[in-house]
C-alpha cells in the first residue's frame, strides 16, 4: 500500500510538472499559431497534433533510442554532466511533455484565435505595451481555454501508460507511476489493489472533469451577462 501511495505521489508530481512546462512552452507556441500568416502554420499545427494520432508505442520506441547515453537527447544530457535519461524521472517528464503537448496547445490555440484583434489594437492605442496587452486583455479573455488546457494536460499525463511502460523501467518511487502500478497489480493477479487504484483514478478523473466543465460554464454565463448589460 505504501508503494501505491508512492505511485500516486509520483504521478501527481509528474503531471504537475509536465503541465507547468507545457503551459510555459505552449503559450507562446499557441499564440504564434493563432496570429501567424506564415505558410508553415499547417506544418507546425500538424506537428503539434501528431501525438494524438500516434500510438504511444511509437513515441516510446523513439524516445528509448533518443534517451540512451549515445542517443541525441542522451548526448545532450551527458554534455550537461548527466547520464542516459531512460529510467529517470527527467526522462518521463520529457516523454510526457511530448505526449501531452497537443492537449495543452490545442485549447490555448482555440482560445487565442477567438480573441478579436481589434481589442488588442484598442489597447495599443491606449499605450499598453505587448506584455501589458497580454496580461490585461489576452489572459482574462482566454481564461477558460487556459483552464481547459491545464486540466487536460494534467489529466492526460495521469492517464499516460504506453510511453512510461517503454522508457520507465518500472522503478518504484522513480518511474512506477499509477497506470504502471495498476498494470503491475493486474499482471501479478493482485486484483484487490488494482481495483482500489483503478476505482480511485476513475473517481478522481470524473471530479476533475466536472470541475473543468463547471468552471467554464460559469465563465461563459458571466460573459453573456456582461454582453447583455453592455
Amino acid at each position, binding site marked *: 500500500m505504501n508503494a501505491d501511495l508512492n505511485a500516486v505521489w509520483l504521478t501527481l508530481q509528474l503531471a504537475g510538472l509536465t503541465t507547468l512546462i507545457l503551459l510555459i512552452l505552449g503559450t507562446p507556441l499557441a499564440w504564434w499559431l493563432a496570429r501567424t500568416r506564415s505558410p508553415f502554420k499547417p506544418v507546425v499545427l500538424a506537428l503539434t497534433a501528431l501525438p494524438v494520432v500516434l500510438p504511444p508505442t511509437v513515441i516510446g520506441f523513439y524516445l*528509448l533510442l533518443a534517451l*540512451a547515453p549515445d542517443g541525441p537527447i542522451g548526448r545532450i544530457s551527458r554534455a550537461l554532466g548527466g547520464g542516459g535519461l*531512460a*529510467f529517470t524521472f527527467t526522462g518521463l517528464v520529457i516523454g510526457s511533455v511530448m505526449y501531452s503537448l497537443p492537449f495543452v496547445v490545442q485549447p490555448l490555440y482555440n482560445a487565442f484565435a477567438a480573441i478579436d484583434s481589434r481589442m488588442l489594437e484598442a489597447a495599443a492605442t491606449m499605450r499598453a505595451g505587448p506584455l501589458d496587452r497580454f496580461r490585461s486583455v489576452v489572459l482574462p479573455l482566454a481564461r477558460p481555454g487556459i483552464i481547459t488546457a491545464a486540466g487536460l494536460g494534467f489529466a492526460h499525463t495521469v492517464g499516460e501508460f504506453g510511453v512510461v*511502460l517503454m522508457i520507465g*523501467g*518500472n522503478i518504484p518511487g522513480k518511474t512506477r507511476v499509477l497506470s504502471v502500478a495498476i498494470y*503491475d497489480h493486474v499482471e501479478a*493477479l493482485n486484483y484487490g489493489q488494482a481495483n482500489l487504484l483503478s476505482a480511485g483514478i476513475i473517481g478522481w478523473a470524473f471530479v476533475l472533469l466536472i470541475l473543468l466543465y463547471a468552471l467554464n460554464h460559469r465563465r461563459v454565463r458571466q460573459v453573456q451577462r456582461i454582453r447583455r448589460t453592455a
Partner: protein
Amino acid sequence: MIFFSSFLAAFTFALVAWMPAYAAGETAYAAVAANFTRPMQRLTKQFERQTGYVIRTSSASTGALFAQISHGAPYDLFLAADAARPGRLEQAGLTVPGSRFTYAIGELVLWAPRRGTVSEQVLKQDDFDHLAIADPRTAPYGAAAKQVLVSLHLWPAIAPRLVRGESINQAYQFVVSGNAALGLVARSQLVAARGATWPVPQKLYRPLTQQAVLLKHGQDNPSARAFMQYLKTKARSIIARFGYRLP
C-alpha cells in the same frame, strides 16, 4: 451501379483467392513465453513447412499469459518459462490431462554488450548505471535473476539500479538499445548478440524448467496436437541450438 457490382466481383475474387492460404491447414494459437520467441519462430517455420499446419504465436511474460489463459483466452498451446504455472492450469482443469511436459531448460546469462569481459565481480562494483532484469513477479527469468542477486547478497544494494522489463524481451531491449549497461537475460536471446557474457552458475538459481501444455481449447485441434508431438521429437535439435538444455 455497374461500378459497384464490378467492385463487388473484384472484392469477392480477392477474398476467394486469399482464403485458401488460411483454409489449407488447421490453425493453432500458441501462447509462448517471451524467452522462447525466437526459437519459436524457427520452429513454426519448419513445422508449417513439414506438416501444412499453421501456428500463430503470441509472446508475453509467462505470468501475463497465465493470467490471460486463467480468464479464458482462447489459446490452444502454452509454452511457459516455468513448471509452476502450467501446473496450476492443470490443477484448475484448463489443460488436457497428461499433456504437460518439459520442452527445454533455460539458462540465465549476465550480458554486457559494451564490455570486453563480464563476471560476478562486475555486479559487485558500481561502475554501471543500470542492470536490466525481467519483472520477478510475472517472468520466471526475472524470478531467477532475483534469486541470483539474493544468493550473491547483492539484492538490497543493487535495487536502486535495477530496471524491470515486463518480460525478458523488454529487459533485453533495454540493454540492446544502450539504456542499461548490463542485463540478466536468457541465453537463447544472445545467440547472435555481441559483447561479453557470463553464464550464471546454476547453483545460484533454481533451474528454469520450461514446460509446455495442451490447453482444453486445443484438445481437438490437430495442429496443436501435432505441434506438441513435434516439440518432443524433431524440435529438439533446434531448441538445443538456441542454448537450452534438454530434459
